[in-house]
C-alpha cells in the first residue's frame, strides 16, 4: 500500500507482520462487526434505560411547541375517533347491529393506530435517524423498539380517554378489563417485531415510507376497525379461506381481544376460534422473527 505514502519513506522491515496477524496477536477485533445474537441481546438489555428515555423524550418533544402542550396526547386520538364516528357511524351507518358502537369504534381506532404508527415510525427508525446511527454506538434495534414503545405510551394516553368514554356511555367496569394488559403486551411484541422488520427494509429503501400509507389503509379497512367482521360476514358467501384469513389477521385479532376485554356487550362468541393462540403466535413469530431479521443486517445500518 505504500504507494499512497511517499513521505516519509516507508520504514520497511520492522513491521513485516501483516495487520491481520498483528491484530490477532493483541486480541483486537474488527470494528463495527455484528455481535453474536446473545451478545446483541445483552447489549440491548444494557441500553434499556436509553430505550425508555428516548421514547419518553420523543413523546414529550412532540407537542412541546403547542400552546395546549400535552393535552394533545389525549385530544388527537379523541378527534380521530370523532371523525370516524361522524363518517362511519352517522353518515354511512356502519353501526347497524353493533351495540355500544362508540366504544366499539373508538377501541378499534386506538388499537389500530398503535400498530399503524409503530409501522410508520419503524419504517423511518433507521433512515430518519442516520445522524444518530452515525454518531453513536449502540445496538440499532434500540431505535425501532424505542419507537414502538413511544407508540405504546401514546396508546396508554388514548386508553385513558377510552375509559372516560366507556364510563360516559354507561359501560360497567368489569373484571375482564385486566385482560387489556396481556393483550397490550402481545400487541406490543408484535408491533416491535414488525417495526424492526420495517426498519431494516426502510434503511435499505427509504421509498417504502411513501408506499406504506396505502398498504396500511388497505390493512385498516380489512381489519374491522369500524365494522364488525363477525356480524357483517356471518351471512356472506365468501370462501372459507378468506374468512379464516380475515379472522387470523393480527390487527383484527388484537382489536377484537381489546373490545372483548373492555366492552361489556362484546361477547366471547364474537371472537374467532383460537383467538388467544393467534394473538400469541403472531406476537412470537413477528417479535422474535423481526428481531433476528433486524440483527442480521446490524453492521450495515448507516451507509448513505
Amino acid at each position, binding site marked *: *500500500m*505504500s*504507494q*499512497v*505514502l*511517499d*513521505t*516519509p519513506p*516507508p*520504514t*520497511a*522491515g*520492522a*513491521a*513485516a*507482520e*501483516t*495487520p*491481520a496477524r*498483528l*491484530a490477532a496477536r*493483541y*486480541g*483486537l*477485533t*474488527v*470494528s*463495527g*462487526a455484528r455481535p453474536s445474537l446473545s451478545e446483541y441481546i445483552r447489549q440491548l438489555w*444494557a*441500553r434499556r*434505560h*436509553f430505550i425508555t*428515555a*428516548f421514547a419518553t*423524550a*420523543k413523546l*414529550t*418533544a412532540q407537542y*412541546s*411547541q403547542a400552546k395546549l402542550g400535552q393535552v394533545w396526547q389525549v385530544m388527537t386520538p379523541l378527534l380521530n375517533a370523532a371523525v370516524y364516528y361522524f363518517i362511519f357511524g352517522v353518515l354511512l351507518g356502519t353501526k347497524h347491529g353493533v351495540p355500544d358502537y362508540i366504544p366499539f369504534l373508538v377501541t378499534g381506532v386506538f388499537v389500530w393506530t398503535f400498530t399503524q404508527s409503530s409501522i410508520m415510525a419503524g419504517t423511518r427508525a433507521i433512515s430518519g*435517524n442516520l*445522524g*444518530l*446511527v*452515525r*454518531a*453513536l*454506538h*449502540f445496538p440499532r434495534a434500540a431505535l425501532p423498539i424505542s419507537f414502538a414503545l413511544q407508540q405504546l405510551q401514546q396508546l396508554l394516553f388514548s386508553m385513558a380517554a377510552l375509559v372516560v368514554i366507556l364510563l360516559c356511555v354507561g359501560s360497567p367496569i368489569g373484571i375482564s378489563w385486566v385482560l387489556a394488559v396481556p393483550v397490550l403486551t402481545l400487541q406490543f411484541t408484535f408491533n416491535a417485531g414488525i417495526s424492526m422488520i420495517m426498519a431494516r427494509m426502510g434503511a435499505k429503501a427509504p421509498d417504502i415510507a411513501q408506499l406504506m400509507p396505502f398498504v396500511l389503509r388497505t390493512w385498516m379497512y380489512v381489519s374491522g376497525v369500524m365494522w364488525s367482521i363477525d356480524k357483517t360476514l356471518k351471512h356472506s358467501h365468501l370462501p372459507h379461506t378468506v374468512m379464516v384469513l380475515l379472522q387470523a389477521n393480527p390487527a383484527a385479532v388484537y382489536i377484537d381481544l381489546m373490545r372483548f376485554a373492555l366492552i361489556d356487550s362484546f361477547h366471547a362468541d364474537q371472537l374467532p376460534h383460537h383467538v388467544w393462540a393467534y394473538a400469541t403466535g403472531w406476537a412470537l413469530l413477528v417479535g422474535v422473527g423481526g428481531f433476528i431479521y433486524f440483527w442480521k443486517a446490524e*453492521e*450495515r445500518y*448507516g*451507509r*448513505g
Partner: protein
Amino acid sequence: MADLVHDKPNGERVPTVICDGVDIVYRVNGTGAGRGSATAALNRILSRNQAEKAAGVRRVHAVKNVCFTAYKGEAIGLIGTNGSGKSTLLKAVAGLLPVENGKIYTNGQPSLLGVNAALMSDLTGERNVHLGGLAMGMSREQVKERYQDIVDFSGINEKGDFITLPMRTYSSGMAARLRFSIAAAKDHDVLLIDEALATGDRSFQKRSEDRIRELRRHAGTVFLVSHNNNSIRDTCDRVLWLERGVLRMDGPTEEVLAEYEAFTGGSDKPKGTTAPRPSPPAKPSKQEQKQPGAGKVPLPS
C-alpha cells in the same frame, strides 16, 4: 504494510487501532447523474447488478486505501483540508460507517466524542443531559452522579437557571458548550474527537483543552481532528495527513505540520504547485473527484 513510523523504537508497543487498506465509499441516490432520475430510479430497482453510475447512484470515494497502526498512549492528530475524509475515517474507526474494502481492527469499542444527534432541541437542557448520557452508554446511576459536573463544566447556569429551559432557546454557543460537556463526561479506551475544541468562548476553550488532556490520560489512544494546528501541536505527538481520502503523510507532529502548512499556506492553486511532494495520481474512474486543490466537500448540491 510497511508504513509504520517508528518514532519510539524502544520496547514493544501495544496496538490499539489497526487500519488495513481501508476504503470507504458513500452512495448517494438520485443525484441525477446519467439519465433523468425517474428512469434511473426504475433502472436501479429493476436491475440490481447494473453499473451504479448508470442507475443514478453517485459513488463518493471518501477514503482510499488507508493503512496505519495506532499504539497505546499515542495522541494522533488528523489533518487535511475540508472534505478530505478525516471525519469519515474517524467514524469508520468507531465502527459507525461500514468499510468498502479492508479491515479496521480495534481494541475494545472506540467512541466518538459527540452526542449532538441524540439530543432534542425541544427538551430542556436537564433532560438532554440525561438522554445524552444514556445514549453514550452510561448507566442511569453514572448520569445522576455526573449530572452536576456536566452542568457546572458547561457553565450554562452561570447566567441564571438556563438548564431547565428547552435547548432551542439556547444561543448556538451555549448549546455547543452543553453538547461538549455531555460528550466529554464519559471515559473511553480509544477516544475519537472531531473538531470539538472549536466551541464556545475563550474561557470555555481553555477548559475544553484541559478536559481533552485529562481524557487522554484515561484513554489508551486519542484521535483528534482539528483545523487548529496549535491545538494539534499542544495535544498530539503523531499526525496523519489525509488529502482527498488518501493518507498523504504519517509521522511526528512537527514534520507533518510543516509540510501541511507549506501545502495550505500557499495559494489555492491546484495541488502540486505548492505541495513539495505531491501524492501519486488517484485511481482512475473516480468521477466524484473534488475540484483540484480547493478541497471542498464533494457531496453534490
